[in-house]
């Protein structure tokens, strides 16, 4: 800074945010864009178990927090645990309404960079009345941290959480046994809880389930090994979440790409645009649509940055086929083997998200990766008690219920069973009238034929529509989309009046 500046406004300048002149080494700049992927971490626990403190402490110890955020915590001056530590939970605040109520009612997203990895913290409330929030949080997570208070041990809530994580596909779970300082860092107290957790976890399909003794306020076993708990030789919380990787397993699953749209440049280019949800794809590979039975080979994998020879799960691309495929949004491309399933009926496990309970007379649609299909029938068959894992027969369900459901589709679409191919094994149930998302879930078994009693449905086929309601429509893309739209709306109107409808537009 030049001398004359200082003489003008010394006091004001001192109060200003000043970035020091900074000349980085070239190598440093290049490294900046090279974080090797990201890990999405779901945190769940009961109010007061110390979740905000734990997340705050993780940010404090292991992340690139801004200096003003650190200062805010220090300046606030609030201390916890007998005045020994700053209140790190101040780093984790939420909506005004929630702050006033003193509870977190929705999932919140936070981002931080460690030296080599992006971490995304998805913070979800734990109480039973927020099961839906936790389920949606779990759907985005690679790893989950379940927090408990060492003084209270494993509770029913812990069982419910584990069941929910398993149901929605989280494969790495950590049990953070917090407030170890309040039990004198006692080994046997932790061992008892850890054993109970192991017994609980064997009932689920987790790849890894680890219990860690921590003290969130002191940072023990959060990012650094604890001196107070030298008897613990296992990984820190940071070690486990750093190691969680789900990208690999997505890559190893069979190839799938749900088609989002068809891109044209007004000349010869016709690309099937979408994100590869699993597997890998190379130029020359077979691509197949199981619903229409069409196949072709990959001629180009096009992106604005240049054509690719090969693309992997997670990549957003446009595929040019070796010959014209009559496909549009909603199709799912598979390879030559291990193909997606052509579904006309399916069973699924759902979490009911809407405040409005299930109503058998209401029209519902099913949203797959990119398709939207009217349901000719949706039936709830059982409710799952998460704590005991018992199935309770029922035909109704409301908000936060986890249920088993079976559904008949108005026309065939391609999906997978979640257990086989998670990326194309998930669905949403959508209210046909107000468009809201009423449920989300994972596909269980997939059936290629309609159930026996579906024969009573009114069949609306292409010829019927073409001769009447849609006689003004031709064969352009727009007209075909409009044709489908009218068919769907018609089916919904019938359904609203209690008539079961089956669309046959093939």
């Amino acid at each position, binding site marked *: 800074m030049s001398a004359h500046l200082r003489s003008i406004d010394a006091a004001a300048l001192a109060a*200003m945010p000043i970035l020091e002149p900074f*000349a980085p080494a070239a190598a440093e*700049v290049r490294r900046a864009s090279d974080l090797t992927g990201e890990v999405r971490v779901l945190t769940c626990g009961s109010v007061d178990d110390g979740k905000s403190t734990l997340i705050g402490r993780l940010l404090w110890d292991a992340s690139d927090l801004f200096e003003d955020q650190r200062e805010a915590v220090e300046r606030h001056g609030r201390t916890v645990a007998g005045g020994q530590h700053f209140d790190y939970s101040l780093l984790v605040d939420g*909506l005004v309404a929630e702050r006033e109520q003193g509870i977190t009612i929705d999932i919140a997203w936070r981002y931080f960079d460690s030296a080599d990895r992006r971490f995304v913290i998805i913070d979800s409330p734990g109480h039973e009345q927020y099961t839906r929030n936790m389920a949606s949080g779990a759907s985005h997570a690679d790893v989950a941290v379940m927090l408990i208070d060492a003084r209270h041990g494993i509770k029913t809530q812990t069982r419910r959480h584990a069941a929910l994580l398993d149901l929605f596909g989280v494969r790495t779970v950590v049990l953070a046994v917090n407030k170890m300082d309040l039990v004198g860092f006692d080994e046997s107290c932790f061992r008892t809880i850890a054993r109970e957790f192991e017994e609980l976890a064997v009932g689920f399909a987790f790849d890894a389930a680890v219990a860690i003794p921590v003290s969130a306020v002191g940072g023990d076993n959060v990012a650094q090994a604890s001196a107070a708990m030298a008897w613990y030789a296992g990984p820190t919380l940071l070690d486990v979440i750093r190691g969680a990787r789900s990208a690999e397993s997505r890559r190893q699953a069979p190839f799938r790409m749900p088609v989002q749209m068809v891109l044209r440049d007004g000349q010869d280019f016709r690309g099937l645009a979408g994100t590869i*949800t699993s597997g890998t794809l190379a130029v020359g590979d077979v691509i197949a649509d199981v619903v229409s039975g069409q196949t072709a080979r990959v001629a180009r994998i096009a992106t604005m940055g240049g054509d690719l020879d090969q693309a992997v799960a997670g990549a*957003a691309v446009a595929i040019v086929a070796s010959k014209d495929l009559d496909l549009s949004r909603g199709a799912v491309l598979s390879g030559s083997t291990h193909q997606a399933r052509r579904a006309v009926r399916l069973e699924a496990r759902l979490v009911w998200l809407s405040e409005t309970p299930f109503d058998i007379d209401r029209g519902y649609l099913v949203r797959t990766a990119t398709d939207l299909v009217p349901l000719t029938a949706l039936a709830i068959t059982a409710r799952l008690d998460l704590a005991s894992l018992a199935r309770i027969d029922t035909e109704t369900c409301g908000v936060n219920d986890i249920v088993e459901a079976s559904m008949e589709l108005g026309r065939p679409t391609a999906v997978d069973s979640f257990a086989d191919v998670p990326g194309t094994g998930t669905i949403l149930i*959508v209210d046909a009238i107000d468009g809201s998302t009423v449920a989300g879930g994972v596909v269980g078994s997939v059936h290629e034929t309609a159930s026996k009693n579906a024969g009573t449905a009114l069949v609306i086929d292409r010829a019927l529509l073409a001769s009447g309601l849609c006689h003004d429509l031709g064969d352009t893309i727009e007209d075909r989309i409009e044709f489908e739209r009218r068919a769907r709306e018609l089916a919904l109107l019938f359904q609203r009046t209690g008539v079961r409808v089956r669309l046959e537009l093939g």
Partner: protein
Amino acid sequence: MSHVQTHLDILEAEAIHIFREAAAQFRKPVLMYSIGKDSTVLLHLARKAFWPARLPFPLLHIDTTWKFREMIEFRDAQAASLGLDLIVHTNQDGIARGITPFDHSPSVYTDVMKTQALKAALYKHGFDAAFGGARRDEEASRAKERIFSFRAAGHRWDPRRQRPEMWSLLNGRLGPGETARVFPMSNWTEKDVWRYIAREGLDVVPLYFAGERPTVVRDGQLIVVNDDRIQLRPGETITRRRVRFRTLGCWPLTAAVVSSADTLDSVVAETLAATSSERRGRLIDHDQTGAMERKKQEGYF
């Protein structure tokens, strides 16, 4: 091709996926273009999503008439070189009523010249969805924002009525009277934006780079004097300082920082080593506590 996906690869692919989902599901979307670095990245991602097709929606810029001169020049140059369909909208009623950032509080000014202007423009053109560059890391109330964020009639945002989002399934079916905001960069951070600009070699408004500019110190913040509409308070003097911006908006309301970073590399490096979060430079956020959340409920982007 390498199989390693960096976090920028992941974020880019996710944004492309969101753009395509929205374009396929909404009837008439528009891209909110505010000229800054986030809009620059947003536009680039949109072009990637639909390449080699043209963007299937126009861009909308809400011009308050108080943007930096350099921003408007940059906007027009981008529109020309990329062949963009650009709509510029100004609240003429606000101009007629003499609403300025000097004569009115930031909240009144923002409401009239930005919020009301945006609502009017969306209504006038019948847009049912608007893409924005907002990120969840910007501010506490945004940490809970959805990717498809629904607005009831009147563009009101109700935190209780937001749809749960699961996996990468995006439900864009609108209820009666509803419109949507779509945030393809929800999971980006300020650092990612700069890393990506560097990686892709994107042009940004020159104000992001340090230069000697005429400044005044007001309320502890550095304001760059962009034209002769400045109203100096007693004791204020205009001084030239080497400064740059971390965020761009209306010039009387946007604070600069002292810096000598005058290349993309040094700006990226400075951002990665920064000691304060970027919204410090935006005066509207300091106006009242929970300001942003209230603004959202009123329909501010």
